[in-house]
């Protein structure tokens, strides 16, 4: 019976079976002999924890933003109770606006920042990448130019804001990591901010890297920029009026 089988039909069948067994044994062997090395397994477990904590963080922020909004409405209502309440509510509304806890709009400038081109030849240079210090420099410069409110990629800067780096990402107030390109929007005196941005001495390091590594740096004005409210609470836990 076997002798009746043409050899050409048998070989592909055996090869196919061997291939299938090969994959099966390889998977089995890998699971037994090189179980995703401890480092990789740990890495995956840590990454999973990070994702879970980030989800919690986003939920906290969403609830905090909703609470801020409810408080704002209740304070508006409270203002109707008496003259003193109205005066206090007005004062709080102004403080909230200056603290970045309410939406803000007005004329302003948006500075854009993006990574440049990696130098040829594989040189270990990171100067073509924009980092948290560049974002910090731009934010500081905009405040110097008289900015009355600033947001980085939609995250509002408050009087207690912290800008830090996490690898190539930028983290503001422990929020979600922001990656380039960055957009730093500032409401304020457009002419003053534009003059400062264009001054050769301003953002010297960034401008040098723009020439050397084509780091992207630009700015444009708008008649009416809108900045979102911060999604954090600003409740001092250790500092008390003294």
């Amino acid at each position: 019976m076997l002798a009746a089988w043409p050899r050409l039909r048998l070989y592909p069948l055996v090869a196919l079976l061997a291939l299938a067994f090969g994959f099966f044994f390889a998977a089995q062997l890998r699971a037994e002999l090189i179980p995703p090395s401890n480092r990789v397994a740990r890495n995956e477990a840590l990454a999973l924890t990070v994702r879970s904590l980030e989800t919690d963080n986003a939920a906290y922020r969403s609830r905090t933003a909703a609470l801020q909004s409810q408080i704002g409405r209740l304070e508006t209502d409270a203002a109707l109770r008496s003259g003193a309440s109205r005066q206090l509510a007005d004062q709080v509304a102004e403080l909230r606006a200056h603290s970045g806890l309410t939406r803000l709009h007005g004329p302003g400038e948006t500075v854009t920042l993006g990574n440049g081109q990696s130098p040829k030849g594989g040189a270990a240079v990171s100067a073509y990448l924009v980092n948290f210090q560049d974002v910090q420099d731009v934010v500081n410069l905009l405040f110097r130019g008289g900015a009355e409110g600033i947001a980085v990629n939609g995250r509002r800067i408050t009087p207690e804001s912290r800008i830090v780096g996490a690898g190539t990402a930028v983290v503001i107030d422990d929020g979600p990591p922001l990656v380039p390109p960055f957009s730093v929007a500032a409401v304020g005196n457009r002419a003053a901010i534009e003059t400062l941005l264009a001054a050769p001495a301003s953002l010297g390091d960034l401008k040098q890297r723009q020439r050397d590594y084509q780091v992207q740096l630009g700015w444009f004005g708008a008649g009416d920029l809108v900045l979102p409210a911060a999604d954090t609470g600003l409740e001092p836990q250790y500092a008390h009026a003294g």
Partner: protein
Amino acid sequence: MPAERRLRTPLVVGVVILLITLLAVIQVRSQAEVQRSLLSQDNTSLAFLIDDLHRSNDDLAKQEKALASRRDMLSGAGSAAVANAALSAEAQNLRIVQGLDPVRGPGVVVTVDAPLNDVDLQDAVNNLHVAGAEAISLAGRRIVTGTVIEASGGEVLIDGVGVRGPWTLVAIGDPSRLATAGDEMTRTLRADARVRSASYRADPDLTISSVIRQRPFVYALAP
């Protein structure tokens, strides 16, 4: 036995293919695994990120509790007096955050005798902010995010006012995190050839009496 030979040849071919496939798959998958682990963040960075997220979530939970309590106070305020108390408490908190009122609390004092420039000082302030400082003063001037520290004609200006060393930074906030930051900052500074001395001390009751004058909005409008 021609039939037996005919059977053996494809079996040998099959075993060879099986072995090659096995080796190829192990090789490819091992490389892919290494590549994936290299591309993602290293474990130390992830561990730091987890610490930061835990701390941030703890802070946010406290903020949420405080805000919910304020909301409940306002929504249940039957009288103007109760509403006014809630409004006054929020105004006071926001005045502290914006540096409009003197403050006291636990924290650290960092003292540095060195010709530091505006970038050094901005870095020092950033480090303290990152370490959870709720109020900062530098050279007797109150500092918040937005305070302009710049160099002009060889001197450092804070919001346009000239200041000089030796530098004293006072930070009020989480005493444990600020002490760690103070220790790291002064150790780094002592390694700098420009620095004559750098030290810090933790204090359970510090006072920052300098304040900022709020600038009214000229261009911005709140809805």
